[in-house]
């Protein structure tokens, strides 16, 4: 077979892998360089559906030429012609030089960066390292504080590390994350992080006490960075306290939220007693004292899982499942919405709107939730 002979003569390193000549593996030469390729020619001797896999270096060189490669599968009359085109292209790219130099400098730089990161991690001590991503660009470091609380420092190392500093994420109050020095090395950053953590012991002790003793309604699941707590202090009244991370035992900022009437006695007590807040006593004890409370209301047992406002199967307008015995029968057809409505609720809303369209016994309008078209029959049709 002529084509195969030509291939063998000019590309001796591209070796057929089967008797049908549909699979080739080997190396294609271009100048002084050789690149690994694997060709799949499913309909040999025809070139349609031809596919190439190649080494990473060659794929970088060929980047942007995918269109050519594809066209040649149509324009070339034989595999030999195709390989010649490919070889010429590689030569041209190499001569232009840009791809190759880019390739080598990048390569070199990456290896240098990796080596640098690994040596820094070794200096830091691997027992502090919780996780390193496979491309070394995400590093998680861990420390355990005096009270046994775990703290994690997330570092994102860019391509240019160490010339550009890593991005730091940590579950600490914002201003303290900013205090972490991004300076010299991973070990120095870690040291600075541990320092910040140890300076916050009193802060977390106070907040842990608040979380233990009080019914906290916001944040839902407090994290180490949250400086505020919304606490229920009576029926219809809550306070939002903000603890100073640098001086946790002093009187926090206190805001009252709730009905004016319910707030008055607490506010009065605070006005009289705030100056007697003593940093030597416990935080909760102080808080009870200035608010004139004997104890904080406990969280009701069922708030373990905050309930949804609208439960499964309820009408999104009246929030009830059964309205005068009827279950919600109208559903929005939009899959992503799927809201349920009672016939009478939806009808009443749609006919309130001048934009809805009434025709015969139907009213056509928009779903109150997602604004997709929705129609609703007149409820009287269903009476008796």
């Amino acid at each position, binding site marked *: 077979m002529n084509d195969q002979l030509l291939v063998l003569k000019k590309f001796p390193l591209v070796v057929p892998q089967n008797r049908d000549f549909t699979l080739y593996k080997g190396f294609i030469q271009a100048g002084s360089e050789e690149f690994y390729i694997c060709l799949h020619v499913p309909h040999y001797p025809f070139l349609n559906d031809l596919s190439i896999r190649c080494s990473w270096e060659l794929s970088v060189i060929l980047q942007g030429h995918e269109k050519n490669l594809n066209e040649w599968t149509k324009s070339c009359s034989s595999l030999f012609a195709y390989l010649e085109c490919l070889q010429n292209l590689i030569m041209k790219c190499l001569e232009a030089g840009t791809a190759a130099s880019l390739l080598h400098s990048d390569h070199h730089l990456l290896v240098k960066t990796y080596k640098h990161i690994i040596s820094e991690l070794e200096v830091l001590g691997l027992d502090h390292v919780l996780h390193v991503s496979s491309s070394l660009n995400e590093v998680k470091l861990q420390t355990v504080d005096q009270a046994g609380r775990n703290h994690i420092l997330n570092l994102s190392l860019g391509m240019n590390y160490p010339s550009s500093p890593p991005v730091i994420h940590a579950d600490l109050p914002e201003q303290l994350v900013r205090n972490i020095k991004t300076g010299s090395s991973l070990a120095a950053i870690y040291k600075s992080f541990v320092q910040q953590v140890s300076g916050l012991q009193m802060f977390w002790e106070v907040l842990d006490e608040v979380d233990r003793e009080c019914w906290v309604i916001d944040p839902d699941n407090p994290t180490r960075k949250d400086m505020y707590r919304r606490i229920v202090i009576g029926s*219809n009244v809550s306070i939002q306290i903000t603890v100073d991370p640098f001086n946790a035992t002093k009187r926090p900022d206190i805001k009252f939220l709730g009905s004016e009437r319910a707030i008055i006695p607490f506010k009065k007590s605070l006005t009289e007693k705030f100056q007697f807040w003593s940093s030597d006593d416990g935080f909760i004890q102080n808080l009870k004292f200035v608010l004139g409370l004997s104890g904080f209301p406990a969280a009701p047992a069922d708030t373990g899982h905050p309930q949804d406002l609208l439960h499964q199967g309820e009408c999104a307008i009246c929030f009830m499942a059964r309205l005068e015995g009827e279950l919600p029968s109208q559903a929005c057809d939009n899959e992503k919405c799927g809201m349920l409505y009672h016939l009478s609720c939806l009808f009443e809303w749609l006919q*309130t709107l001048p934009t809805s369209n009434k025709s015969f016994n139907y009213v056509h309008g928009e779903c109150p939730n997602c604004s997709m078209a929705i129609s609703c029959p007149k409820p009287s049709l269903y009476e008796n």
Partner: protein
Amino acid sequence: MNKSFRLKRELEYITKSPPPGISCVPKGDSLDVLDASIVGIKDTPYESGVFKIEIQIPEKYPFEPPCARFITPVYHPNIDVAGRICLDLLRLPPKGTWRPVITLSGLLTSLQMLLTQPNPDDPLMTEIADEYRFNRPEYIRKAKECTMKHAFQSI
């Protein structure tokens, strides 16, 4: 339609898991007038202020939007000296965008957002809107001053 059932459910929800910096409770014994407050968001001229809002629930709620009014004076392009609020969410279509699936919790969160992001293209207070557009530092100064004077809880 059972208005009080829905209202009770909404109030219970706000009490147990309120959105950050928001509260809403009945003013008296009836559920027709509510006392709400929102805490101004950090890094805005309203930061740390507690703003009282009175909410009136209309007879046809939720087919008609609640009527909300700031009790605490606010310096803001979309809130006038009487505390009236210009927000499309508070009006029925076609002029507004009220829909019966909007909840009190959502409404109050929107009001908190309105403080953060005024809409000078639909102002109630044209002078403040112009100031907001063309002399932002002055707007910020006045809004902060107003917040300190009226919205700070003095002890």
